């Protein structure tokens, strides 16, 4: 039985807490938050203890693993404290405010020999898992390009949330949201070697953070990724398309307000009618549960988890390269020997 403490009791904590209790191999024993009352409310719901600050969470001997779902600027100190005390860590994305912070976390975990997983839950959506499998099985042949349009419409008052506070987050909507699409591209295809991007703040009063980011990424072998990450997508949208020499894959929806999650596979054929096979994933979003299950398995098997510390670092490297490109108006080259 893996004993777990969760640091942070906001929206993400409410998603991650219940699945820890649901999985038979794990038990949530402690929830901590900046304010005890908030921790207590969630702890009562999940039937565990509550405390304030993260000292207890990282120091108690009966705790094996720590889940970090604080705002981003607290990831580094919380993760380092947990790792120094020999705890395995599942840390919400982005791993840190910038690449340096993420590298510190990743290196500390490696040195301490603990498991570090970055919360790229999209990898655990069934449609995206299916897409990855189809690519791996060669169903679409050599990949040529991918396109992702990913956006939400924000909500009234968004500009007053911590997500819109540049002191707490390391970037705008691209870092908050678009980073998932970048992580998926790295998972499906590999690392980009060239990055170009534009960002703007076109609607929400959240400058200097962006509410829209557009990027074109290219790998050494000429695979191109077109990404638009938007906080002005009034009707929520998740669409990920991957085209190869032999066929194409489209994943749409993530359940909930994004619509039913669907994965389609079609084949290149110049004369036959257009046809594809589509799988629809009914029911609730189970990515949080699947992600947690994979983390626990990695701990039990003492292996690298899916979306490990390096993935957390590299996705951030791409995000910040897009920011740098947008700032300087130039293509940013990423070295290949990482």
């Amino acid at each position, binding site marked *: 039985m893996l004993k777990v403490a969760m640091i942070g009791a906001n929206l993400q904590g409410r998603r991650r807490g219940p699945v820890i209790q649901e999985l038979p191999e794990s038990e949530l024993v402690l929830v901590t938050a900046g304010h005890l009352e908030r921790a207590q409310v969630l702890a009562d719901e999940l039937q565990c203890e509550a405390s304030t600050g993260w000292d207890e969470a990282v120091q108690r001997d009966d705790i094996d693993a720590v889940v970090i779902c604080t705002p981003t600027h607290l990831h580094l100190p919380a993760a380092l404290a947990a790792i120094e005390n020999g705890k395995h860590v599942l840390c919400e994305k982005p791993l840190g405010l910038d690449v340096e912070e993420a590298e510190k976390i990743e290196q500390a975990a490696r040195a301490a020999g603990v498991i570090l997983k970055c919360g790229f839950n999209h990898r655990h959506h069934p449609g995206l898992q299916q897409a990855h499998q189809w690519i791996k099985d060669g169903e679409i042949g050599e990949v040529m390009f991918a396109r992702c349009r990913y956006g939400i419409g924000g909500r009234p008052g968004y500009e007053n949330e911590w997500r819109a506070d540049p002191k707490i987050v390391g970037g705008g909507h691209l870092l908050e949201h678009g980073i998932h699409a970048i992580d998926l591209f790295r998972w499906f295809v590999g690392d980009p070697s060239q990055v*170009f991007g534009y960002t703007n703040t076109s*609607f929400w009063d959240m400058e200097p953070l962006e509410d829209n980011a557009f990027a074109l990424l290219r790998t050494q072998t000429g695979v191109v990724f077109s990404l638009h990450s938007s906080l002005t997508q009034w009707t929520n949208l998740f669409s990920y398309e991957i085209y190869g020499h032999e066929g194409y894959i489209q994943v749409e929806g993530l359940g909930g307000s994004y619509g039913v999650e669907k994965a389609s596979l079609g084949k290149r054929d110049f004369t036959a009618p257009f046809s594809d096979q589509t799988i629809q994933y009914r029911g609730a979003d189970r990515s949080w549960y699947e992600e947690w299950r994979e983390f626990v398995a990695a701990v039990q098997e003492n292996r690298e988890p899916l979306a490990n510390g390096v993935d957390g670092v590299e996705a951030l490297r791409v995000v910040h390269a897009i920011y740098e490109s947008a700032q300087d108006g130039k293509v940013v080259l990423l070295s290949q020997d990482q």
Partner: protein
Amino acid sequence: MKVGIIGAGRQGWRRAQAIDVSRDDITFVSDIDAQAAENLAVVYRANHTVNWQDVVRDSNVDSVIVCTPPLFHAEIVTSALENGKHVLCEKPLARNLKEAQDIFHASVSNAVKLKCGFNYRHFPAIKQAKQWCDQGVIGDLLLMRCRHGIGGRQDYDSEWRVQSSVSGGGELIDQGSHVVDLFRWFMGEFSEVFGITETSYWDIEPVEDNAFGLLRQPNNRISSFHVSWTQWKNLFSLEIIGSKGSISVDGIGGSYGSQEVVLAGRNDADSDMNKRIEFRGVSETWIAEWQEFSDAIKDNREPMANAKDGLEAVRLIDALYRSSELGQPITIN
């Protein structure tokens, strides 16, 4: 109106039919292939020739429709304008910026009309989207996205479209011309572009089968497109997001699926902002486009998609090619 058709290929036939339906007279057809010219001319009881010069000099011709590959546009269009003919020229207006500028200048210095064949502007779904935008229904336009492509056909690699000396480039100048024209039509002018072109599948180098573009306006609004000859299932998707709502257009008829335009408000509660119109069976724009041209001549006004629009689209395409080559964004003057 008496019309001369230069270029009796597939496009010439399409145009001829639209002219005929509009009760204008096709009086002259030319093609470097004498048989092709004759085949089309016979249908409409027109004269035919292998020399386009005969058409542009014929006093019995009021307007000329140029449906040749882009290689011949500059010479033919310029000459037709100088001979006082109104011209409807297929897109792209020319293979490159220099040729497009020559055409533009010839059009400015002659008192005739020049329309560039950006027929997408005449699709009813796109027209409806434009009308909503003009009426301010979705507020300030924040951005546009377009994904457009076709899977090619077997032997695509041997068509004239893939020879840059004839066409000016690959998929970027082919379907990409329509996309940048629509972006300009909806959003206005762009001041910087970044492009990536790739030859991912077809054996057509140095011409590209895929092109990605990001276009920036002086107020830092960004629009994004991808055009592809490896879009195994044909696709046309145009999305416009404004401060009060969004519009999407899907399909342009035929193998691209029926045209549908959807209007959605920013707030779910704003239910009268949600509309969906499907234009069944409409897949052609040639008649609407011809009639707009013919009305422009009658009313002595600029046609929709005029010489300036043709030139500016080529300018953007040219900048996107240069950007791809240099690997850096290009400022538009």
